[in-house]
């Protein structure tokens, strides 16, 4: 499988907020030679304990879509040249988000962080059409019920739980299994003999995986990150994770899926991460994703999400203001018909605090 990945040279610096754009690195990749792994001769480095060494900083940021575009249904692979062209086009087409931050100002867009061209036309590699398989009839019914309940709550956030779609600091829903965040999808891996830890930049999650062969924990204990158990199969780290929280919804599965991942280091600067998810009560068949992880320079800094969660306050306060008619509805703001944006309102509020006028206590 690694034959389909490019081995670029090591990405330029990756500390979020300090890196400037190096667009020439895209061109550089085109000139790089194929990965040593393509000829199968790569010798995986070892830790002092003799285990395959995955330590260091890695990113899985990418421009490759998770599911395959319909137009490419029968084309799982680009040619090398097509992959480079698709990468360049994705870089030039990508528009920075305007809510919260301009990511490029922080060196946080994929191309700035070490994303590279991929011959895959989608990260999802099985089923062969590169799409999440259809839901079972029972799951369809469950999803319909859930969506109807969500719709009945209306478009405005009622409680903090409704803010999950934007920034949810409790758990980063894209971390396990990884479905790649738009930025900050970076890892720091540290190993001891009996444990491998993957800390994740977005939301500063840490995923602690025992390697000592212990059984899974009690089924009654279900968690957002699930209960992970790792073991070595040759040079590959295999991680089996169960007991996901029922508060999750992963493509229609409410925490009842099982996850089997394989991490294989195929070059000094590449880990191939594949995973298969299975849930007979949700999908008509298991499905599999392949994510290249590229080495980046550290360090990785703290993402203090809960501590800085202005979004949580803004969403709820503005929802109440919209209910009261003191703030234009979102659709008008989005159309540009209404001048007062959430950002302006928040900045005014912040200016008041900074100016010593005290917090606006208006209901």
């Amino acid at each position, binding site marked *: 499988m690694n034959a389909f990945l490019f081995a670029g040279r090591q990405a330029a610096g990756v500390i979020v907020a*300090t890196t400037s754009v190096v667009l020439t690195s895209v061109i550089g990749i085109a000139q790089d030679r194929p990965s040593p792994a393509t000829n199968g001769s790569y010798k995986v480095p070892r830790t*002092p304990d003799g285990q395959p060494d995955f330590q260091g900083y890695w990113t899985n940021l990418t421009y490759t879509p998770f599911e395959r575009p319909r137009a490419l249904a029968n084309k799982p692979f680009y040619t090398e040249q097509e992959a480079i062209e698709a990468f360049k086009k994705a870089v030039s087409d990508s528009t920075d988000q305007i809510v919260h931050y301009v990511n490029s100002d922080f060196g946080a867009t994929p191309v700035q962080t070490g994303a590279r061209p991929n011959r895959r036309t989608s990260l999802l590699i099985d089923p062969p059409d590169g799409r999440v398989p259809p839901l079972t009839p029972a799951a369809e019914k469950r999803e319909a019920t859930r969506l109807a309940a969500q719709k009945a709550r209306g478009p405005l956030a009622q409680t*903090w739980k409704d803010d999950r779609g934007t920034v949810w600091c409790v758990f980063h829903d894209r971390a396990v299994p990884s479905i790649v965040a738009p930025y900050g999808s970076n890892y720091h891996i540290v190993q001891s*003999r009996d444990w491998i830890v993957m800390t994740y930049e977005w939301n500063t999650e840490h995923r*602690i995986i025992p390697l000592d062969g212990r059984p899974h924990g009690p089924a009654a204990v279900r968690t957002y990150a699930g209960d992970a158990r790792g073991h070595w199969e040759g040079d590959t780290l295999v991680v089996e994770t169960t007991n996901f929280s029922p508060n999750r919804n992963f493509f229609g599965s409410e925490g009842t899926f099982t996850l089997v991942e394989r991490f294989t280091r195929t070059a000094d600067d590449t880990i191939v991460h594949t995973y298969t998810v299975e849930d007979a009560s949700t999908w008509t068949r298991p499905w599999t994703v392949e994510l290249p992880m590229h080495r980046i320079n550290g*360090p990785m800094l703290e993402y203090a999400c809960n*501590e800085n969660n*202005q979004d949580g306050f803004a969403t709820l306060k503005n929802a109440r203001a919209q209910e009261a008619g003191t703030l234009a509805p979102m659709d008008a703001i989005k159309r540009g018909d209404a001048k007062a944006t959430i950002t302006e309102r928040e900045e005014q509020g912040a200016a008041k605090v900074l100016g010593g006028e005290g917090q606006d206590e208006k209901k």
Partner: protein
Amino acid sequence: MRTATFASIAAAVLFVALSPRVGESQTYTSLRTASGQPDVNGFWQALNTAHWNLEAHMASPGPVLQLGAAHAVPPGQGVVVDGPIPYRPDALAKKKEYAANALREDAEIKCYLPGVPRMMYMPYPVQIVQSDSTILMMSEFASAHRTIHMGSKDSPPADTWMGWSNGRWEGDALVIETRGFMGGTISALDREGAIQVRFLDRAGNYHTDGLRVVERLRRIGPDHLSYQATIEDPNVYTRPWTISMPLYRRLDANMQLGEFKCEEFVSDLVYGKYQRTPDK
């Protein structure tokens, strides 16, 4: 700003080094990792009342009447070696004010990252995973973790809640210098979420962004670490001061850190006034 010199910290560390360490056996030889470092891997936890109050304190009622004896404060002899904590007079007045408003001001209430050294003596296990270049210390509380950069002399790239930690070995002792701390929430954050300073315990002992901590961890037996932290913050204290305690190994079968995503448990509290009760 940060007027106290490193020499003053070094002097404080020396002072402590010359003092008897808690339960420390001078004859114990630490186990080694495969690469020959003293082995500090494992699950460790403080067993004391430092999380309530670093200083000696009598038993007292808890802050929430309804919780009665279940959340009352047990007595403690204190863990400050060279106490009382040397507050500047103005800072001591503020400490009393913060303590009186602990339910609003304490980061623990809001599930914010606990910082250093507080993470080490909260009533939650700390897992240490050790490699040659990096030592991770992970708390069950709020999924907080610290990354110790071994051999690094780097300055903090930015201020953070858990600080920037450089580590080194001095014989069998792991010595960690940590600085680059956030002193509280950003000024623009809504009042309901805002905290002004960082508490070191539930009693209102606090620090600001001037904090610098030098910790010293050493195996004193198969199931014990000695832990010391020298705390400097010229905004708050007149001199560096030191806490000392043992950390105990958790021997539970199949011990692992639980997932304690406490933000879920405080969001109704923090966002409550901006929420809408469903079906109204």
